[in-house]
């Protein structure tokens, strides 16, 4: 059980990225080598300029000076060609990592136990899949190449200074302690501020979505102003963090400027001394000054994009944290259920320790029989239904299908064996046919039509603008609650599982739609061992067996007629239901 999705630390992220890079290593390293070669060529620039200075001082003829011009052109050509090819190769490797991570995160989202995902927060998961992933892909496409170039340029420039004159290079290094101090200071302070900023932005988005979805309620209760104030407070909070980040980054730049001044002054003073001692020429001094000046830009780029780099690191950690979550181990010897008899042995459950919502339950459902689960709200019906469907792991006890405990089925077999229809009537984005084929990949159109017909949906589907090819879901044609539930039942028919669990699938459709859906469910269930959570007792009436739950215990069991005769809990529920319907 996980309470919240983890965030990977730096070490874990590094390991994960190296592991993902394993197939692309030649490409990535080759690309890197080309970039290094291209940047190394560019280092000739200031050296040539220094040489020109010396030629001028020596009053050489113009032709000698002009001769160096093609050298500068060649330098530019080599640099351009090599860095372009190199960075394209590096980017291709990076994009593969991004794609692998993207699929891995969704894979965890869909394959981890659903109850874990909901406990840890679907909102958090969505933020990671959308915002963090988008930050990561920007990092791969833009940030990493920029930082790579900047970092290499700094290293190579320092290298060139060493080749020019080691004493000057040593002088240039005078800036290093200050720069290192600045980076250390930044790493200590900025990362947590960065996290807080993302957190604040996330809360702000959550508050916003809540206000949009609840706008009608806010209007109805005249609380629009307090909703606005709440949002404004979150918005101000995120603004405050952004300003803190800006403050930190300018302080950081200030420290870098200090380092630059120190280095530049040292190089100039050293040049002065060395030129006076005739140890170097004025040309060399000029080249050194130009080299050092050329360091400013990459330094500022490298360290100036710390804001984005830190953000990318945080996002990467959040993505890898999910991508590396261990999947539930598959059973060692996966078996296939023999038949579709459903047995529940000693199943109990508690969400919070010491507060059991389900006391040991014993239940057997004959193959092909339909059992209705009846009871007051909070009696534990949904909990039992989700446990039987294999979506929730019980605190104790076992559920078996065809004699095989659910825990010994691998996930694919489980998915083909039990289908759970929940209250969440989600319609997937895409065409109606694509939505249906999620339950039956590659199913023929005629099969889709047949399934829709079974649940009484073919009529309205034919009436849609493009029939089965109509775009539905977010941004598409909006289906009514009843239609969405009919679609869910059609998916059930297509998935064709031996066992079906229906949980409150009719609740949100309103009372008129509920009857229509009951008819659809009756058409979808024959031949399957089914468990129906019944709100409307008419659903229970037609069941082969009715199981009455009260306070997490099975209190009665039997057919409609038997239970009425017993004059117990069910008879009481039925009386309440029938009394309201009695024609006086």
């Amino acid at each position, binding site marked *: 059980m996980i309470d919240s999705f983890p965030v990977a630390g730096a070490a874990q992220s590094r390991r994960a990225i190296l592991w993902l890079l394993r197939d692309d290593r030649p490409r990535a390293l080759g690309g890197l080598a080309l970039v290094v070669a291209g940047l190394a060529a560019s280092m000739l620039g200031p050296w040539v300029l220094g040489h020109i200075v010396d030629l001028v001082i020596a009053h050489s003829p113009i032709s000698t000076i002009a001769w160096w011009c093609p050298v500068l052109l060649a330098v530019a050509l080599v640099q351009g060609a090599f860095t372009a090819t190199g960075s394209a190769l590096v980017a291709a490797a990076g994009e593969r990592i991004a794609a692998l991570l993207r699929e891995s995160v969704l894979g965890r989202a*869909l394959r981890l136990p659903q109850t874990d995902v909901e406990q840890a927060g679907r909102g958090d998961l969505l933020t990671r899949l959308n915002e963090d992933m988008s930050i990561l892909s920007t990092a791969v496409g833009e940030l990493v190449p920029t930082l790579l170039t900047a970092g290499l340029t700094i290293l190579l420039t320092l290298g060139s200074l060493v080749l020019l004159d080691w004493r000057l290079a040593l002088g240039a290094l005078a800036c290093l302690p200050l720069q290192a101090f600045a980076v250390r200071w930044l790493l200590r302070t900025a990362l947590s501020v960065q996290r807080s900023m993302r957190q604040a932005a996330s809360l702000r988005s959550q508050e916003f979505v809540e206000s949009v979805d*609840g706008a009608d309620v806010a209007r109805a209760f005249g609380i629009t102003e307090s909703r606005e104030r709440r949002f404004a407070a979150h918005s101000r909070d995120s603004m405050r963090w952004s300003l803190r980040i800006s403050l930190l980054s300018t302080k950081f730049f200030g420290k870098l400027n200090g380092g*630059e001044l120190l280095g530049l002054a040292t190089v100039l003073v050293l040049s002065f001394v060395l030129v006076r001692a005739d140890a170097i020429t004025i040309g060399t001094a000029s080249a050194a000054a130009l080299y050092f000046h050329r360091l400013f830009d990459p330094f500022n780029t490298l360290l100036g994009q710390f804001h984005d780099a830190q953000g990318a690191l945080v996002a990467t950690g959040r993505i890898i944290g999910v991508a590396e979550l261990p999947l539930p181990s598959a059973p060692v010897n996966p078996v296939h259920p023999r038949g579709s008899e459903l047995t529940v042995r000693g199943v109990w459950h508690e969400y919070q320790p010491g507060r059991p919502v389900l006391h040991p339950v014993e239940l057997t459902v004959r193959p092909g029989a339909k059992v209705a689960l009846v009871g007051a709200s909070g009696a534990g019906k949904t909990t039992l239904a989700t446990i039987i469907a294999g979506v929730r792991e019980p605190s104790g006890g076992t559920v078996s299908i065809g004699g095989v405990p659910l825990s010994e089925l691998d996930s694919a077999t489980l998915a083909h064996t039990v289908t759970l229809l929940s209250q969440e009537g989600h319609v997937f984005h895409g065409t109606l046919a694509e939505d249906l084929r999620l339950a039956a990949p590659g199913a023929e159109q005629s099969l889709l039509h047949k399934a829709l017909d079974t649940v009484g949906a073919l009529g309205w589907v034919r009436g849609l603008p493009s029939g089965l090819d109509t775009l539905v879901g977010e941004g598409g044609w909006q289906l009514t609650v009843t239609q969405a539930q009919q679609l869910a039942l059609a998916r059930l028919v297509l998935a064709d599982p031996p066992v079906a669990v229906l949980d409150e699938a009719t609740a949100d459709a309103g009372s008129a739609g509920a*009857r229509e859906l009951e008819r659809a469910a009756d058409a979808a269930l024959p031949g399957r061992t089914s468990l129906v959570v019944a*709100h409307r007792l008419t659903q229970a009436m037609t069941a082969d067996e009715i199981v009455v739950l009260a306070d997490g215990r099975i209190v009665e069991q039997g057919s409609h007629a038997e239970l009425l005769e017993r004059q117990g809990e069910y008879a009481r529920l039925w009386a309440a239901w029938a009394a309201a319907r009695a024609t006086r």
Partner: protein
Amino acid sequence: MTPTSALAALVRPRVPDERHSPEPVPDPVTPGTVIRYSLRLGRRQLIAGSLFTALHQGAETAVPIVLGEVIDRAIAPGDPVALIVWIAVLALLFLVLTSAMRIGLRNGTRGIEGTGHALRVLLVRRVLDPRGAEGAGPGSGALLSTTSVDAAGVGMYNSGIRRILSAVGALIVAAAVLLSISVPLGLFILLGLPLWLLLMRRLAGPVANRVRAQRATAAQASQQAADYVRGLRTLTGIGGTEEALRRFHHTSEQSRGAAVRSAAAQAGYDGLNTVLTGVFLAVAALIAGILADQGKISIGQIVTAVGLASALIGPFSIIAGAARLLAGARVSAQRVADALATPPAVTEGAGRPASVVGALDVDIASLRLNVAAGESVGVVCPEPTDAIALLNWLSRKEDPPSGAIRLDGVDIRTLRLADLREAIGVSAHDAPLFSGTVRDNVLAHGPADRLDPALRAAAAEDIVAGLPDGVDTEITERGRSLSGGQRQRLALARALAAAPAVLVLHDPTTAVDAATEARIADGIRADRAGRTTLLFTSSPNLLSIVDRVVLVRDGGIHAEGTHADLSNAEPDYRDLVLT
């Protein structure tokens, strides 16, 4: 503002305090007015930011000039005094540079964030506007992207202007220095650079196309992933996980292909850029060298000129990219303006009822429904859309095409919306809860002493008893921690707690079992005794507690009477309610 606090605000810009609520964007709301609004709002930061960023850019540009001077005046002649003087000048220059950078950047960020905050709050205010929005309007996803991305995007206009002004500042300094060194060299650099930039801008088009294609596929991938996560229960329920992942793999690979193509185009462009920059600098160096050789410029001036030529690339690119930067901000302004200017669904009224008795007359086309003050009426609509329309008209989510609804004889369209909704409370069957405690949710509008009676009437006491902190338990993610039936009962308790003169409930018990529903029916009857109550439902439990039931069909009242009468006399009614 005192001078000291003004200076403090300049160096360390602050967040506006909670008393400061943003002014509305003046009418008509267009991208232009949104941008003007944002400029006016951030004018202080814009002015300070532009001045100081220009100073910063100018100082950066001056660094190679000082380098040239050090070589010419100190190193070449070997003059130690000059060395000390010029190093001191360099230090001073850096002090100016770094202080200007701090103030400029901080004010720039404050400008963007201030605009972003104000527009975000205005967007939420628009979403929550009592007059509602015409039509379905953009979904919460699209609106979210407008608030989180575009609100700050408009601020980029301020930032764009700040950067352009500062680039122009740097350019002027550099041009003056270059031309004073040598007119031909200065002209070559000042005319050559824009030409080179124009050429690169030409080539940027195809690259931008590939980048756009890449962004589109990336957005598609994230939309698809989000869709699967939102439908997680549905997906795992039908065993569609593997098929979904297979489809996502396909989308993800498409996205990767587009990203690799886009990166290759970008790399090619950058490579070409490097080559052209190199060519340009080589020619500049050659000209400088020849001029120095002819004694027309000094050695230090070669360093200055070459240094300046490369230092100017930044400011020139900013100016060349200005149009695109501002265009991006304008696109954001357009989206913000569209969202803010969504036409309201209804108009605000002015009337303020003194005290509401609660008599309701619905007189729309052929539908005439008169509800006496204190009466309870059940409304059965076989067509769900009829119920929705009536509820929308009663809450003035929209107005009927003709006819009127009167409260105590007064057309509800003439009443102030806030007063109307205080008088007529309408609660939908799927009304969401807000995150916050149970108490805050139930007492959204009711007085504290309504908490217990409302919870009791909605049969919600056992829910509260089962929560770890009772009524002070925090509800998370719009009540996802509760079951559907629990959420529905708390929403009902909220509607009852507000105790409006007229309460309109739509299917308040669809997710509740029959026994609890019967308790709720009794609870509603006791709680609403003597006050006008309309129940839109086909639940016999609820219909049996009202004084009168009306069956609405084909835009009129098809039948009316008590639940018992209709059950006996109306076969249609029996079909709808009792089967």
